[in-house]
C-alpha cells in the first residue's frame, strides 16, 4: 500500500496537503484553546465572577505554565547550581517569648470563668452584652444542632444555603434598616473578602493608620493605591482628601473609598462619623465602615455608630461587622444597598469559595438580635459599667487611658514608653500575668503579629460587659493600680 502511494505523485501531494491542513487546524484549535484557557485562572475552583478587568490581571499574573528554556542547561551548569544552593530554614529559631502559652479556660468565657481551677473575673472576652451563657441563645442553638447537625458541608452556591442563613440575613437587614445583607462564615474574613470585591487595581483608598490586620490584608490583596491618614484625625483626613481631589480633577472613572472602623480594635477610639460623612459628600468618596465593636453597643437601641452620630444609614455605602463581639456568636456580615450585596455574592472570595456558616451559629445570631431588641436596658447598663471602670482606672500612675470614654474597649497604655515596642509589651504582659495570678482578674496585653503594619502603641485591653457587677469593676481597678505600682517601681 505504501508503494502504491509513492508511485502515485498526485496521491502523495493531496495526502501531504491534507495532513498540512489538518496540522493547521490542530494548531489553530490548540492556540484558541490556550488563549481562552489563559484568563480562566485555573487556580479558581467554584463558580465566581472574574470580569473583564480581572482577565488581564490574572493572565498577566502568569497563572498558567510556560515552556521552560534555560540557557544554563546548555552548559550543564544547572546541576552545579542546584547542588550548591542551600535554603534558609523554614522558620527562624525559637526564642523564649515564642514559647509562652495563653491561659486555658475550663468553662464558658462569661464574666466569671475558671482558669487553673480558680474562678477569675474575665475582662478578656468581647462579651459586651453578657449574652454568653444566656438561656434563650442556648435553647435556639440546641434545637438547631438537633435539626441540622453542626456543619453545613458546602459553600453557599452548592446546597450550603440553609433557610436559617436567609432568615439571619433578613433579620440583620431589618434591624439596621438596610435593603439586604450577606453573611460570612468568619469574622476576620469579612473585611478581607469584601474589600477586594470592590476596590480594584487603580482605585484609591484612604484609610486610617490604626485599622486591624483584616482590613490591611484586604487592601493589600486589592492592589489599589492606599493612602494612610493619621489615626482618628479629621484634619489629616481633610488634607489627604483635598490633596487627592486637587491632583485628580479629570479622573471620573476612578473609584474612591474611605475605610474606617467605628470603634478601633487597636486603640479604643471612636471615629467621628458625622464629619467623615461631610467630607465624603464634598469629595465624592464612598465609605466602608467596620462596626465589629460598635454593633449592639453604641446608639440608644444598639444599631451602631450611625445611630450614635445621628447619620442615616443609607449614607454609608458598605457596613461590615464581625458577630463575635456583642452578638456572642461567630461569623460576620456585610450590609448595604441591594447592588452592593448582590455584587458580593459572586465576587467575594471568602463567600463563594468557602463553606457557609454552621446553621446553629446563624440561629444564635437571630436570637441575639431578638434579645437585644427586647432588652435595650443592656446597653445602658454597659454604658454605666464603662463609666465606672473609667473612673476607677483614670488615676493609675504610669498608665493612661487611650480610648474614648464611651467605647466598650478600655485601652491602657504606658504613660512613658521604654522606647521599644518589645520592652513595652513585656512590661505590660508582666502586669497582666501578675494581675491574673495574684488577684484573679483576667486582663490581656494586646499582641501584634509580625505581619501587622499598625504602629500604634501596645497596651492592656479590658473588654467591659453589661454583665459585670460593680464589685468586679472595682476589683479590677484596684488590682491594676497595685500591680502597676509594683512592676513599674522595679
Amino acid at each position, binding site marked *: 500500500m505504501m508503494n502504491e502511494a509513492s508511485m502515485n505523485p498526485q496521491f502523495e501531494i493531496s495526502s501531504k496537503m491534507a495532513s498540512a491542513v489538518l496540522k493547521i487546524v490542530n494548531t489553530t484549535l490548540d492556540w484558541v484553546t490556550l488563549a481562552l484557557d489563559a484568563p480562566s485562572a485555573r487556580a479558581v475552583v467554584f*463558580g465566581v465572577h472574574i470580569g473583564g478587568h480581572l482577565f488581564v490581571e490574572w493572565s498577566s499574573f502568569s497563572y498558567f*505554565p510556560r515552556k521552560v528554556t534555560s540557557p544554563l542547561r546548555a552548559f550543564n551548569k544547572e546541576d552545579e547550581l542546584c547542588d550548591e544552593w542551600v535554603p534558609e530554614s523554614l522558620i527562624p529559631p525559637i526564642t523564649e517569648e515564642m514559647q509562652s502559652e495563653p491561659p486555658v479556660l475550663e468553662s464558658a468565657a462569661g464574666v466569671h470563668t475558671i482558669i487553673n481551677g480558680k474562678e477569675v473575673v474575665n475582662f478578656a472576652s468581647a462579651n459586651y452584652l453578657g449574652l454568653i451563657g444566656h438561656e434563650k441563645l442556648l435553647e435556639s442553638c440546641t434545637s438547631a444542632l438537633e435539626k441540622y447537625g*453542626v*456543619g453545613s*458541608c458546602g459553600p453557599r452556591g452548592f446546597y450550603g444555603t440553609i433557610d436559617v442563613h436567609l432568615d439571619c440575613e433578613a433579620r440583620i437587614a431589618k434591624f439596621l434598616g438596610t435593603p439586604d445583607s450577606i453573611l460570612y462564615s468568619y469574622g476576620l474574613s469579612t473585611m478581607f473578602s469584601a474589600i477586594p470585591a470592590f476596590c480594584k487595581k487603580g482605585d484609591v483608598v484612604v484609610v486610617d493608620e490604626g485599622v486591624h490586620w483584616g482590613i490591611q*490584608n484586604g487592601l493589600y490583596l486589592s492592589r489599589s493605591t492606599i493612602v494612610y491618614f493619621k489615626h482618628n484625625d479629621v484634619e489629616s483626613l481633610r488634607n489627604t482628601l483635598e490633596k487627592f481631589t486637587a491632583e485628580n480633577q479629570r479622573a471620573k*472613572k476612578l473609584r474612591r473609598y474611605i475605610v474606617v472602623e467605628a470603634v478601633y480594635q487597636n486603640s479604643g477610639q471612636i471615629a467621628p462619623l458625622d464629619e467623615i460623612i461631610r467630607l465624603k459628600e464634598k469629595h465624592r468618596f464612598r465609605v466602608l465602615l467596620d462596626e465589629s465593636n460598635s454593633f449592639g453597643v453604641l446608639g440608644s437601641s444598639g444599631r451602631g455608630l450611625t445611630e450614635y452620630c445621628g447619620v442615616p444609614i443609607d449614607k454609608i455605602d458598605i457596613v461590615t461587622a464581625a458577630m463575635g463581639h456583642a452578638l456572642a456568636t461567630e461569623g460576620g456580615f456585610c450590609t448595604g444597598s441591594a447592588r452592593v450585596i448582590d455584587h458580593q455574592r459572586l465576587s467575594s472570595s471568602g463567600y463563594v469559595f468557602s463553606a457557609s456558616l454552621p446553621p446553629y451559629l446563624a440561629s444564635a445570631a437571630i436570637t441575639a438580635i431578638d434579645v437585644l431588641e427586647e432588652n435595650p436596658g443592656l446597653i445602658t447598663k454597659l454604658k454605666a459599667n464603662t463609666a465606672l471602670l473609667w473612673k476607677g482606672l483614670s488615676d493609675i500612675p504610669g498608665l493612661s487611658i487611650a480610648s474614648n470614654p464611651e467605647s466598650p474597649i478600655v485601652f491602657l497604655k504606658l504613660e512613658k514608653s521604654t522606647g521599644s515596642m518589645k520592652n513595652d509589651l513585656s512590661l505590660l504582659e508582666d502586669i497582666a500575668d501578675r494581675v491574673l495570678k495574684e488577684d484573679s482578674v483576667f486582663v490581656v496585653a494586646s499582641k501584634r503579629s509580625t505581619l501587622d503594619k499598625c504602629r500604634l502603641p501596645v497596651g492592656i485591653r479590658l473588654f467591659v460587659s453589661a454583665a459585670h457587677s460593680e464589685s468586679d469593676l472595682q476589683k479590677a481597678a484596684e488590682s491594676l493600680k497595685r500591680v502597676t505600682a509594683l512592676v513599674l517601681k522595679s
Partner: protein
Amino acid sequence: MITIPYVTALATYFSYGLLFVFGHIRDLFRKITGCFSSNNLQGYAPICLGNEDFYQRRLYQRIRDCFERPIASAPDAWFDLVERFSNDSNKTLERTTRIRRCLNLGSYSYLGFAAPDEYCTPRATDSLNKYSPSTCSSRVDGGTTVLHKELEKHVANFLGKQDAIVFGMGYVTNSAILPVLIGKGGLIISDSLNHCSIVNGARGSGATIRVFQHNTPSHLEEVLREQISEGQPRTHRPWKKIVVIVEGIYSMEGDFCKLPEIVAICKKYKAYTYLDEAHSIGAIGKTGRGVCELLGVDPADVDIMMGTFTKSFGSCGGYIAGSKELIQYLKYTCPAHLYATSMSPPAAEQIISAIKVILGEDGTSRGAQKLARVRENSNFFRSELQKMGFEVLGDNDSPVMPIMLYNPAKIPAFSRECLKRNVAVVVVSFPATPLLLARARICLSASHTKEELLKALEVISQVGDLLGIKYFGAEPKKHQQEEKMKKLE
C-alpha cells in the same frame, strides 16, 4: 485526560458566541435607554465599570436558579429543597413554602457526619451548654479552652505529626499562614489547578509565584531546576526558600496528586512541601488518614500538612500540622491566631467525636464501615457511569466525580432535569473551569445506600440520553455484541 470531540468543541464555541452577541445587543439597548433615565449617584464612579460584570449580567443570570438553592434540613443523603420562583427573569428569586425531597449528590459530606449523629451530636450539645456557642475572644487572649487543646492533640495524633494548630475557617488558614512562612525573596511553586485560598495566600505573602502543569512531576522538576539556577528575577540572587504547594484531591478534577514523586523531587532540590488536604482528609486511605496513607508517603516527609474539617468531619474550620517548632512559631506570629475569634466549642467537640468514631475509639466499628462504604460507593458509581458512556474524570477511590457537559446550554438543562426527577446535582462552568470544559460534579457519601445510588444512576442515565452527553457511547453493549459474534463464529 479530557478528550473533547471536535464537533462538540465547535458547537460549544458557537453557543458561547451566540450568547455573547445577544448579551452585547442587550447592553446596547440598556445604554440607549439608560441615557434617558436619571442616576442619583451623580459624580460617583459606578461600582462595576462597563464590561466587568458582563458575564454576571448576561450569562450567569440566565442560569442563576441552578446555584444557591436553599435547603430546609440537614445536608444528609436526602434533604428538603426549598422551591423558588422568579418574576423578573432571575434577577431576584423568591422563596416559596413548597419543599421537595431530593437525593443529595452535591454536599461535601463524605463520611455522612453532616446530619445529627448518635455519638457526636449529644456531645456537641453538652459542650454547647458548658462553653456557649462562642468565646468572643481570640486564641491568645481568652479564647483557648481545654477543648481547643484537646482538639489539637487529637489532630496531631491522627495525622502522625508532632503538633497541630486549628483555626475557625479553612479559607483563612491558607490565606493567613502563607504570608507568615514565606515573604519577599522566596519562591512559591504551585500546581496550576490550586484553590483560590492558596492563590490569595500566595499573593498576600509577596513571594514570587511560579506554576507547574497540573500533576506533572517532570514539569515540576524542570521549573525547580530553572528557578534555582537562575535565582531571583532581575537581581539573580539565590532564593531564600522554596515552597511547593499541592493538594490531596483536586475538587474540580477528582484526581489525587502524585505525592510520592513530588515529595522525592522536593527532597532532592531541598524545597519545602505544603500539602492541602481539604477534601482528602478523613475520606481517603484505609483508616481515613488522607492521601499520605493511600499513596504510602511517610507524613514526616511532608513539611506542612493543611486540611479542613468541613468536608469529612461535618464541622467547620481548618488545621495546620507540622513539627513542634513550626507550630510554636505559627502560634506566635499568625494573624488568624492572634486576632480572629477562636473556633466555636461545639464545632471543636464535633471534630473530636468524629475522629474518635473514625478511629473506632467510641467502641464500635462504624468508622471503618463508613470508610469502606464511601470507597465502595465511589468505585461502583464511577464504573457504572463509565459503562453508560459518560465522560467521568478522577481516579479510583476518589469520591469526587466530575461528568463532562461541555456545552453551555446543557449546564442548566442537566441541573433542572435532574431536579425534576428529585436528584440534586452541582454544575460548574466558566470561570471556575476553562470555557469549554463545563461539568457536573458528583460528591458521594458513606450515607448513600445501594438503592439510592441505583436510583441516581437511572435518573442520570435518562437525563444523559435526553441531553446527549454520553460522549463515549455505551460500552457493554458493544462488548456484548462482540462476544455474541465471537460465540457465533
